């Protein structure tokens, strides 16, 4: 009797419990790996891509990634436009300019956001102690990037405009040498160069930023044609990034180490700037707002010939991310 009683009781108890999650269906055998080329940067904004590669998350999703490294997102996007890469990591500003140019691209996921990544670092010996001292100074910036947009934003906060200074176009990798060599009095750039310059200038350097005037986003973009033809690839790509997202959230120290190794960057530098970034795989409304805001800025400053605001909803691809992580779609259509 007791055996039967215990058996039935066990059945009852077990029937009251939820079933355990099934094994990850995305595991693929190595034989079915799909090759893709992913363009991304050495910047901290590309952390999720580095972690996904380093942790083999792409491989887990059946993707064999060929990394195409760049110093900044604008170049990364260009490799996508040049059909050298299937996916490209890029900030919203280059993406916006290329949409205005008529490129048929999709933004498939936002992988980073920050209000503190962009700043103006100046030399004090150039007579710059406070923000207002920037008036009339030579300030280096990278056109068509977030540096370009942030510089104008900061000038506006200070009460200046582009005409109040001497803008000097520079590539990101040129910035440090230019200011050190005093070819410019200040530069407007992002990390890691920003912190590296500040460190190099030491007490002679002064940093100007406003965390609330601008929110940078870093995203993955792909050709619209590619996305439509390879939806499963896109979903696998995104799943890998989501895994990286979870790993970074749960193991930040490891993630920092991975970044240090992958980018050959000093770990202390990485740690110093780590908290300025928010690594989340999402598609939310802030992207739309930022794109439209920057488009308005670009049009106002005649940085584009376009005068009609594009329908950015048509350039943001939600379906793939919704398929793999529905709650990552926020405030969307």
């Amino acid at each position, binding site marked *: 009797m007791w055996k039967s009683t215990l058996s039935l009781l066990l059945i*009852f108890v077990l029937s009251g*419990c939820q079933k355990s999650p099934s094994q990850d269906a995305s595991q693929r055998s190595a034989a079915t790996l799909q090759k893709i080329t992913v363009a991304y940067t050495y910047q901290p904004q590309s952390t999720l891509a580095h972690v996904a590669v380093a942790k083999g998350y792409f491989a887990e999703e059946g993707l064999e990634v060929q990394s195409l490294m760049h110093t900044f997102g604008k170049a990364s996007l260009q490799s996508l436009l040049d059909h050298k890469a299937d996916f490209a990591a890029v900030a919203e500003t280059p993406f916006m300019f290329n949409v205005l140019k008529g490129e048929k691209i999709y933004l498939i996921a936002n992988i980073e956001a920050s209000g503190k990544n962009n700043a103006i670092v100046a030399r004090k010996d150039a007579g710059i102690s406070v923000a207002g001292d920037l008036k009339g100074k030579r300030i280096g910036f990278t056109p068509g990037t977030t540096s370009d947009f942030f510089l104008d934003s900061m000038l506006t906060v200070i009460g200046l*405009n582009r005409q109040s200074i001497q803008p000097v176009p520079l590539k990101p990798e040129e910035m440090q040498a230019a200011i050190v060599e005093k070819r410019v009095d200040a530069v407007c750039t992002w990390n890691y160069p920003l912190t590296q310059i500040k460190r190099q200038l030491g007490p002679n350097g002064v940093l100007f930023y406003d965390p609330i*005037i601008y929110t940078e986003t870093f995203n993955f973009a792909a050709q619209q044609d590619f996305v439509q033809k390879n939806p499963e690839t896109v979903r696998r790509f995104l799943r890998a990034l989501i895994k990286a997202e979870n790993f970074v959230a749960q193991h930040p120290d490891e993630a920092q180490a991975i970044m240090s190794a992958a980018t050959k960057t000093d770990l202390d530098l990485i740690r110093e700037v780590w908290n300025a970034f928010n690594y989340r795989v999402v598609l939310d409304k*802030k992207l739309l707002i930022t794109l439209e805001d920057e488009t308005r800025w670009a049009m106002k400053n005649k940085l584009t010939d376009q005068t009609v605001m594009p329908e950015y909803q048509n350039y943001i691809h939600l379906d793939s991310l919704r398929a793999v992580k529905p709650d990552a779609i926020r405030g969307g259509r």
Partner: protein
Amino acid sequence: MRVKTKLQTIALFMFTVLIVLVTAVFLLVKETRRSSSNMRLADEIQSNFMERTSIRDQYFLYREVHMLNRWDESKKKSDQLLRQAKQQFQGTEYQQIIELLIKSIDETAVIIHRIADNSNEMKSTAGNREILEELDKRLSSQLLLKATAIRDTVLILNELSNQSAEHSYRRLTTIVISLAGTVALFTLLLSVNLMRLIRMRLIPLHEGARNIGNGHLESRITVSGSDEFSELAHSVNAMTEKLVAEIEIRKTFEKELLEANTAIEEANKKALQKSEAHFRTLVNTIPDLIWLKDTDGVYLACNTTFERFFGAKETDILGKKDYDFVDKELADFFHIHDRKAIEAGRSTSNEEWITFADDGHKALFETTKTPMYGADGQVTGVLGIGHDITESRRAEEEKIKLETQLHQAQKMESIGSLAGGVAHDFNNKLSVILGCTYMAFTEEDQAKRQALLDEVRKAAEQSADLTRQLLTFARKQTITPKELDLNDTVTSMLKMLQRLIGENIQLAWLPAPDLWRVKADPSQIDQMLANLCVNARDAINGTGRITIETRNNTVDSYYCEEDPEAVPGDYVHLSVSDDGSGMDKETMARVFEPFFTTKGVGEGTGLGLATVYGIVKQNNGFINIYSEPGKGTTFTIHLPRLEEKSQKTLTEAKTPPLPKGQETILLVEDEPAILQITSQLLGKQGYTLLTAGTPNDAMRLAHEHVGEINLLITDVIMPEMNGKDLANRLQSLNPQLKCLYMSGYTADVIAQHGVLDEGIYFIQKPFSLPDLAVKVREVLDGKP
């Protein structure tokens, strides 16, 4: 395994499982409540955000300061809610979300205030307007961006809390269902097990026990195993064996008991026979007649005396009736009295003379007949006991005769006491009468002769009083109650009483003033006074003092509680006290008994105080005695007060002159002197008189007289015919004839009644003219 162990194990297991499940339910309910609370808080945070979003949009429309203030208020509320959420929500994920919200909302606050500041600057500065407008746009864009992020985060918080609540609810439901299922399963398993237990173990035991219970004491229950059922089976088997042994013992005991009972019954029977023999001897030895009859009068039993009455043996009497032994008239008599007792439902008595059949002697029997009842309450017959009272009746009659003689002797004793004094006084009065009469014959002067005749009249009246007093003691006079002033009555007796008690004893008289009047016969008052004074005299040895006192007295209910013979009301009390030897309580308790006396033989009759008691009761009064040995005695007589109305009437009646009339009166008196003087008296009052010396003369006159005769006045005792018979004869001739009787010294028919009957008129001889005139008028004016 033993059943008890099984049951304990099941109970313990079930209890443990239930405790676990109930604890799980309790914890899940708690968690569900917390989740619900979180969900409500998340909703509130979302509502707050939406409210602030609305305020923000309104601000952007008009840039009004008060909208900014409202935004700040909403932000304060948000801070409060988020602080609460930080405490309430548990889990790292929730805490991160809340931290993010706090940070983002704080940033929006900074942004919106910078927008406001910038907006104010735009209003005041014209030069930098373009830059300020650009800044405004940039800030607004950032604000929108932050708001979006906040909204998304709030939604996440809401979704998570909703999912958590839903998950908790699902788990709670699952556990509750599991609990119900477990209970049902256990119940099912327990029922199956119990049924198996009953079928395999209990039913064989029951059938075995029933077999034994049906009387098959040789059979035994067969149950295998070593649990309680097998133990019970063994116990029943053992009980059965013990029962068989007990039955054997009981049979032996019953046999012995039967023998003992038989012996007891024999002994009882002998004892009963002995008792019955004693009883029979008792009944037969009693000299009374004893018998039993059923309701039909058939004899059931009788004793030896009764056998003598019927002159037959009891065996011959039983089964027969009175009619078989005595004549019908006597048998009817017996039967009637049997029925009376049965109908009365109690003992009844009667007296009967019977003649004994065995020797023919007669005897008076007092027979008591008592109905007998059966157990059902119905009458079964009559018990008769006849007691011979022949001798006791004779003794009683002898006693009455002796009492009468003694009574009379007491009176004669009193008369004897008075005789000397009365004779002396009477002789004196006669001397006065003779002397004055003689002188009147010789006296020529009319006035002197009149004075002498007055003396004669006075002496005659006083003589009449003396004879009246003598009659009182002889107690042969009629009793005529009338309204009295006791003071007058006592005063008139004083001289005689003094003579009665002798010169050595002082008689004190204390009359009360304004004494109420009473209604009584004066002669009875005199008799009571004489008896009490004689009694007082005898109590005084040598010299002493007797006090007579009158007083008004009101008796209330309290007094009556002390003296049961007293009745509340106004009384005139008359007391006679002496300072003689007094009485003890035993004597006092018996003084009013007839023939009770403390005097020596020949000194008293024992009837004096009994007479006083009788008179007092006759007059609706009562009497007390106060006495202590050596200190004297006081007898107090209480006579009811007469109503004032009667007194007034009496007073008024005395006032008018003597009544007169013209009617014809037939006067019959065998004493010529009385006939003559009475005739003259009535003639003076205007009446027409026909006088007759004998009843025959009267009869003749009545026949001869032409006119109507209105009144017959007649002596009662006369040689030829008594007054009553004469009146009857004349009234038969003339029904309208009225009658007034006169009486002198001898006894008459009327006096035998003690008081005058209603409607019979009477006047005591001798009488005065006023008395006669009033009485005659009263009779003539009254009914015939």
